[in-house]
């Protein structure tokens, strides 16, 4: 059993699914994204070198698939408003209980996508800064500045909670 308890791959895929959901917010879109990424991973499995970073490899594939999806949808940018996004949340019941969760979600929505990605990859998925830089194809300094801006923007919004008006995403 060279892979730790045989669950390493499942751990990474669970992580991909969580990231996809946080990014797209919609269950079926997220599963579709993961599905497409895995289809490509299976097709290109021979490009994965044993002993290298399986998680980074999978996340990079997912990222590329997502970029392509966004590109092909670019003709028809859909605006989603916060209310309809919230109705699709993972845990609607708990959602109402906690103002902070709602505010966090809203703050996340208001981030530019490039910052949102970095925040999710680092703070939620625990990727290393170098992994994120490589995955996104940007210098590490860019990762750090996006992370910093994202965190400060969220901080300002959470500090401001209560006075938040409904805004459009994007």
């Amino acid at each position, binding site marked *: 059993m060279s892979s730790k308890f045989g669950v390493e791959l499942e751990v990474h895929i669970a992580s991909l699914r969580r990231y996809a959901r946080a990014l797209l917010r919609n269950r079926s879109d*997220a599963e579709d994204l993961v599905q497409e990424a895995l289809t490509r991973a299976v097709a290109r499995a021979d490009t994965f070198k044993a002993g290298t970073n399986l998680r980074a490899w999978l996340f990079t594939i997912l990222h590329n698939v997502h970029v392509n999806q966004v590109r092909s949808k670019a003709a028809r940018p859909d605006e989603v408003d916060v209310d309809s996004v919230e109705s699709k949340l993972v845990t609607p019941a708990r959602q109402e209980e906690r103002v902070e969760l709602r505010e966090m979600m809203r703050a996340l929505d208001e981030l530019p996508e490039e910052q949102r990605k970095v925040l999710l990859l680092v703070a939620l998925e625990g990727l290393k800064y170098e992994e994120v830089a490589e995955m996104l194809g940007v210098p590490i300094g860019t990762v750090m500045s996006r992370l910093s801006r994202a965190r400060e923007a969220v901080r300002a919004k959470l500090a401001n909670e209560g006075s938040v008006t409904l805004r459009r995403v994007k």
Partner: protein
Amino acid sequence: MNAQRVTDDELHAYVDGQLNPDRRLVVERWLADDSEAAQRAEDYRAQAALLHELFDPVLRESASDPVHDLTEKLRGRVAGNDNVPAWHAKPWVRMAAAVMLVVAGAGGGWMGRSAVGTSPAVQQRQTLQTFAEEATQAHRFYTSDERFQVELNADNQDELNSWLSKRVGRDVFGPNLEKVGFRLIGGRSLPTDLGAGAQYMYVNDANKRVTLFVGAPQAGNPAKFGFTQNGDVATIYWVEGSLAYALAGRLAKEELLGIAEAVFNDVKAGPPRRDPPPQQQQNPQQQPQDQQHPPEQQQNGVQPISDTQKPKDS
């Protein structure tokens, strides 16, 4: 004071656990002096905790069928990942993945602050977390002194199981963990938030101990599982059927996970059908009139919860 000025990047790296170890002390010293920076670090951690709260539930959902099939395909193709047969039950895989990915205890007191308005779902989560904390404390306490580690030893496992089942009010048993090198030494019953709980204690050849805490939650929710780390004691907890389980040990998360898997599988397989002790008559599971049989020592062991009582044997 300014000699070792800490950069913004280092503050993030500190929060994310990606800081060079030799800078860690420097950053901590700085945070002790600079309350504004300390607040930022705490806020960043709180953000991460909120993200986990929002999105960790995804880990408890089943993947779609295509994603599941592709996972199996990929497992077969990716080098370095042995083609592991489906030896693990699906819920186990989900649980294992969640245990590895969930950050528990992140945010610390900050998370506790808002745990006031509670829905039943939140309540149950808290109850389970409390259960896990109790398991952790009980582990710490009863592994600290070998003389009091168990109320009833495992010489007669049927007796141990039926006694603890009576205390918990459900059929419980100490799973067989020999596959992972741990031998049952005995158990005790303890009061918990969820009513009486059973603590089973195991030991391996290196004299490492793990304890399995079993209790009956008000309502079973098979999707709940988690991980907490309290000092050097790690605890994995979950609900299976009508029982809650918490496995605690001074072990790395992954090692504990391997043991949790053995517990999970053995619990799934059902209560033991071990050979009855040779000197006794065949005694399948539990005798209807159980009052006749229990030896006196058991009665002594059963009554007190406190450990001032002399253990039956040590």
